[in-house]
């Protein structure tokens, strides 16, 4: 059963997911009977996570704030086996996608999800999407306040909220509360940062208008010091202003970031504040009782704290350099001594698209979560899986098993931990394929020693302007573009996520697919040549700028100038 460390569905939550399945089953039948046109059916299926891709329907399952119980992951594995091609794809928004789905089977798939308290509601469409937070919520050593209770409260409030189901465009909300912003809140329509004020009271900083896509913009602050009780009324005020005034004439100018930019952040904040004055202290104000009801579900599991410097663990680290390297890269500090959170890399190399897991792998991960942890799994927006509560003394056993299943590669945060969208191989929107590029780069940089020497290095690939691979915030970003029906790739450098989020700068004219691995190699070598001691790529880049990279990547241009 679902462990007590996660939110527990009650009869209301169950009624929502079960009634939704019945409702969509009826809509599918009416569509197939010709009672609903394609145009009328479109937003209905999108709001149930169903896209039409190049070859088949794709179903996107919600994994609220990236948190899964082991039995839920097993259900996802069974669905992949019974209804898809025995694998699923974890996305940059902590969800799971099935790429080969038959329309008439979707209601049955949704029923299986509902049976384990899951759904695909609002994973697409012009509505509030899955609420995200960071993958280490509740366990990270640098966390200020656990963001999961408010994330769950927001999930419920935004689910089938009748006023906000036909917004101008999709709407993404992220919440985070750690020293490091691992939820990329500055690239969301609303980014919430939860902290405690001097009196120890929970407060929110509200950021709006972030987003990547065609017009990448980092969000701006509209409210500081908002007491947590006002979370829902404030978000409601933002959504109402957006729903009324956001542009609807041009799909590419319909995100809230365009409205914020057009009005200016101050005028937008004034509009929101005026709207909020009508709502504050009303029925939408959260109560301590509701916070407690939800927060109680996220109780810490029964940890058995151990000294951080266990002798056995030390010996194991000494005995295997490979193991030590994996521990160094793929574990994250935990709030409880003797524990870490483990990153299972879904990027073992050229043969596997980032984020893809077979059914057997999903089942294995579920088993490890039960055996070594408390039955819980997280999905990171880097498309890796996290086991949040692992004793250091279990790491060797876990690493051994993970390695046997292709999930033990020590490359978390390294150049080959590539974030990539499914690209032109699947997606109807893509201008170019991203998976062959990913594979070619992974093949070129197969030497782990070299990768570890390079240190933290993010590489993000999107097959089109919609930026599902978040290419703007990769240290190296690769964007697929279409030139006269040919696939080309534009490269940006210097993007980064987190509190020092930055958008990458375009290095110059785009490249063919064949040129890309060589270009990346040149960028990497330029970095190595200019690097001071153990500098990270982003620090070197910020110190020396784009020019030295340009000179090396486009030498012939330089000659032409001479």
């Amino acid at each position, binding site marked *: 059963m679902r462990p007590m460390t996660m939110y527990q569905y009650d009869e*209301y939550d169950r*009624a*929502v997911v079960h009634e939704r399945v019945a409702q969509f089953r009826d809509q599918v039948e009416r569509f197939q009977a010709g*009672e609903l046109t394609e145009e009328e059916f479109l*937003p209905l299926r999108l709001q149930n996570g169903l896209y039409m891709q190049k070859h088949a329907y794709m179903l996107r399952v919600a994994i609220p704030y990236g948190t899964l119980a082991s039995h839920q992951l097993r259900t996802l594995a069974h669905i992949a086996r019974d209804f898809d091609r025995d694998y699923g794809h974890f996305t940059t928004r902590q969800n799971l996608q099935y790429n080969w789905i038959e329309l008439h089977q979707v209601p049955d798939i949704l029923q299986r999800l509902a049976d384990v308290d899951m759904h695909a509601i609002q994973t697409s469409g012009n509505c509030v999407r899955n609420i995200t937070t960071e993958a280490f919520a509740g366990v990270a050593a640098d966390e200020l306040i656990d963001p999961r209770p408010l994330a769950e409260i927001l999930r*419920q409030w935004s689910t089938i909220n*009748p*006023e906000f189901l036909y917004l101008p465009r999709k709407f993404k909300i992220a919440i985070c509360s750690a020293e490091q912003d691992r939820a990329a809140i500055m690239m969301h329509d609303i980014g919430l940062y939860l902290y405690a004020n001097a009196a120890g009271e929970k407060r929110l900083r509200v950021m709006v208008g972030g987003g990547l896509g065609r017009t990448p913009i980092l969000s701006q602050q509209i409210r500081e010091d908002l007491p947590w009780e006002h979370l829902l009324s404030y978000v409601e005020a933002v959504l109402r202003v957006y729903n009324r005034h956001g542009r609807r004439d041009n799909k590419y100018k319909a995100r809230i970031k365009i409205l914020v930019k057009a009005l200016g952040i101050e005028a937008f904040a004034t509009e929101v504040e005026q709207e909020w004055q009508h709502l504050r202290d009303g029925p*939408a104000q*959260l109560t301590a009782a509701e916070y407690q009801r939800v927060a109680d579900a996220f109780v810490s599991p029964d940890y058995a704290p151990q000294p951080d410097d266990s002798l056995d663990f030390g010996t194991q680290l000494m005995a295997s350099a490979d193991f030590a390297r994996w521990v160094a890269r793929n574990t994250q500090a935990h709030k409880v001594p003797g524990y870490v959170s483990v990153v299972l890399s879904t990027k073992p190399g050229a043969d596997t698209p980032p984020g893809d897991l077979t059914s057997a792998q999903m089942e294995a991960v579920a088993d490890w979560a039960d055996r070594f942890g408390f039955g819980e799994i997280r999905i990171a927006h880097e498309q890796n899986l996290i086991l949040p509560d692992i004793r250091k003394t279990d790491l060797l056993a876990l690493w051994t098993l993970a390695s046997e299943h292709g999930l033990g590669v020590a490359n978390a945060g390294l150049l080959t931990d590539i974030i990539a969208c499914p690209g032109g191989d699947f997606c109807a929107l893509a201008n170019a394929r991203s998976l062959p590029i990913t594979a070619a780069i992974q093949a070129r940089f197969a030497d782990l020693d070299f990768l570890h020497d390079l240190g933290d290095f993010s590489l993000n690939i999107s097959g089109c302007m919609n930026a599902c691979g978040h290419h703007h915030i990769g240290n190296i970003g690769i964007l697929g573009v279409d030139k006269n029906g040919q696939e080309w790739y534009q490269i940006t450098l210097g993007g980064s996520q987190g509190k020092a989020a930055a958008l990458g700068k375009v290095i110059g004219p785009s490249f063919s697919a064949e040129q890309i691995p060589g270009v990346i190699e040149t960028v990497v070598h330029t970095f190595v040549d200019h690097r001071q001691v153990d500098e990270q790529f982003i620090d070197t880049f910020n110190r020396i700028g784009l020019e030295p990279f340009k000179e090396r990547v486009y030498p012939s241009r330089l000659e032409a100038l001479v």
Partner: protein
Amino acid sequence: MKNLLKLDENGAHLASQDHWTLIREHDGELPPGPLILPFKRWLERQCVEPPHRMSLHGVWLGPDDELEDLASRLYVLPLIALDFPSFRDGRAYSQAYLLRTRMGWEGELRAIGDVLRDQLSHMRQCGFTSFAIREDKSAEDALKGLSGMSVLYGRSVIEPRPLFRRR
């Protein structure tokens, strides 16, 4: 209007007779009333009427019309309709919320335009009380879409308390 669903003390039902005529045109001859006029047209006529007399005609607003301009005249109105130029344009949901919750409109609120079965429950929750179903669709079928789901997590015009206050 034809193909109309109504909510009243008898519950939801197909309105067999509706005496309103919807006028889409912004100029030209008008048929005999009562009419549902475009906002500007209604305002123009209102200027020549005694200001406090109950209007014979109702008004409809498009999503670009400013609700606030109606605030001082609500009490003379027999009916307000909000237009859905496309069922994917969700602005009328917020207009309905504001009319009901902020401006205190208690009379009939009618959904017109691209009004379809699968959005009716959202409209009902946002305070609409009559629904002019698009004429190529069966209003009888659409009736099934009015009730929607049994649980609303958030709040709405007809249930201002979010679920956490009712749970």
